[in-house]
């Protein structure tokens, strides 16, 4: 992990961002600096090793933004396994860079053009493949979702984020943080950061979902703000669904958050009141994306920009001795073309 992934990733005090907001101190957990550019590698390598140990020859995975696909393709290359990545055709269009990366790493990318043509349908197709090829294949599910024991496997592989962050903040501040903030698609980077702090009752935790264009059916992916309990892909959790139980379409500017369900442990943490869940809109996330780029020289992933958007809202109202850790779950290189398109700029 140290020499290949680059762990521990730094916990960086974002001085200029903090000063520009005039409130609480903001630290960034720099998962964007991990190999392949996001926290996804922590889980992908762990599961690739599991697969090798189980004697499987082939890895499959779903991907939304492409980060988990790239991470799994990397794990497959490192372990000498075959690899096939399922990706919705809409996501292929908005994340073409990652598609090419996966191919460079030796993976096949299977286009999923059914249903909403995004992450949910990629998971369906990966599960169908897995049912068919279970004898030779391991399904590297990329988030804290799916049938047991995936939510716990993925959480445990990602919990390295929180373990490191806890040690680092104690080294730098001599105390625990007041707030942890992370974005939530399926919820793996958030579970990874939160897990180690669950028993530290003075640490507030905030999960940020994708508010898209607003909380109107089909225009967002905020399961707690606009969803209800249901069963999808082997898990009971909060879902965006219609009255009959069919799954609704979703929208988010970030492919990695564009998903109709959320990891079941997040539903538990929400019901128990331990974690607060909120959302950031596309516009707020894009604004945070630009703000971090300009104040700190760090281009964040659009997913992570949702967490940053919440920090931008929260920090000014807190005193200067308060401490916030934002999980900067991925870097924004993959999103640059997409953002240029949104701004009407031709590259």
């Amino acid at each position, binding site marked *: 992990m140290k020499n290949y992934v680059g762990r521990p990733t730094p916990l960086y005090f974002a001085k200029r961002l903090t000063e520009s907001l005039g409130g609480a101190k903001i630290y960034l957990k720099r998962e964007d600096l991990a190999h392949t550019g996001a926290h996804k590698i922590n889980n992908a390598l762990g599961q690739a090793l599991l697969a090798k140990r189980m004697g499987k020859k082939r890895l499959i995975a779903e991907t939304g933004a492409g980060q988990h696909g790239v991470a799994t393709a990397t794990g497959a290359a490192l372990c000498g396994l075959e690899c096939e990545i399922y990706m919705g055709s809409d996501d292929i269009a908005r994340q073409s860079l990652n598609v090419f990366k996966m191919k460079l790493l030796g993976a096949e990318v299977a286009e999923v053009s*059914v249903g909403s043509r995004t992450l949910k*349908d990629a998971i369906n197709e990966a599960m*169908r493949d897995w*049912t068919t090829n279970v004898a030779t294949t391991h399904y590297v599910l990329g988030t804290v979702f799916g049938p047991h024991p995936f939510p716990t496997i993925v959480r445990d592989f990602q919990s390295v984020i929180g373990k490191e962050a806890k040690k680092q903040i104690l080294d730098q501040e001599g105390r625990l943080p007041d707030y942890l903030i992370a974005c939530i698609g399926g919820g793996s980077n958030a579970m990874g950061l939160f897990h180690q702090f669950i028993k530290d009752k003075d640490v507030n935790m905030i999960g940020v979902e994708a508010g898209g264009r607003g909380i109107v059916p089909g225009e967002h992916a905020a399961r707690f703000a606009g969803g209800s309990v249901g069963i*999808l*892909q082997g898990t009971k959790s909060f879902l965006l669904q219609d009255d*009959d*139980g069919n*799954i609704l379409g979703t929208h988010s500017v970030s492919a990695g958050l564009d998903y109709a369900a959320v990891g079941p442990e997040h539903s538990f943490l929400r019901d128990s009141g331990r974690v607060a869940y909120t959302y950031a809109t596309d516009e707020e996330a894009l604004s945070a994306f630009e703000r971090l780029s300009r104040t700190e020289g760090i281009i964040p992933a659009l997913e992570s920009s949702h967490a940053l958007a919440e920090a931008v809202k929260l920090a000014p109202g807190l005193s200067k001795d308060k401490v916030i850790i934002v999980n900067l779950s991925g870097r924004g290189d993959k999103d640059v073309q997409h953002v240029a398109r949104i701004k009407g700029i031709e590259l």
Partner: protein
Amino acid sequence: MSRIEKKFREVLGRKGKAFIPYIMAGDPNLERTRELVGILEECGADVIELGVPFSDPLADGPTIQKAAQRALGEGVTLGKVIGFVGSLRKTTQIPIVLMTYYNLIFRFGEERFVREASAAGVDGIIVPDLPPDEAGSLLSFSKKTGFDVIFLVAPTSTGERIKKVARASRGFIYYVSITGITGSKLSVNASIGSHIAKIRQTSRKPVAVGFGIATPEEASEIAKIADGVIVGSAIVKRVEDADEKLKQYLISLRKAIG
């Protein structure tokens, strides 16, 4: 005894095997489904499996996925299908089982589902994403009304799992012929027979086999080792194509199954 159990007893009593065709309710619309139920019965179906469309049918291949999309486009819901079966009961008493995914039943309410479906004349339900371990409440509601909940055994099921499924399943036990999804290519081989033998060691309930059975030859091979043969995607595809030879195909399946 449920209508499904009676049917199996009657068919097996005359040394026959049950023919269980599957169609998607509301593909392309419920009026056509009504006609198709009539055709299936006329062509010798013993039990009809009626799919209820769900947006994310994990166990289904492309043919049935597309059928579900068409039916959803027609506005077909679980509630409408229950009402539809109720209206069919004026003209037919053939056993009808629904096949759908758990979220639809969960949203509808398990108790309400069993009550309304039984009252309408639905005989049972197959839920591929509901293992018996998670089916306690659905089973307890069903037992009271004699509604059959049918569970699936897969080629990867262990001896212990087979025992559990066989014990929980009512009406019949559904053996999935392949590791895979509906409409996949079937290879009829000795392992199907040995799995069915394993099921029979633990249970005397009828065993029907489905997934990937498309030709009369395959149906005939399966009928030699199972109590019932389920054909889905191959029929749904012919419905999609408005195949004029649908009846001939169904009759050839019926003859092959015996």
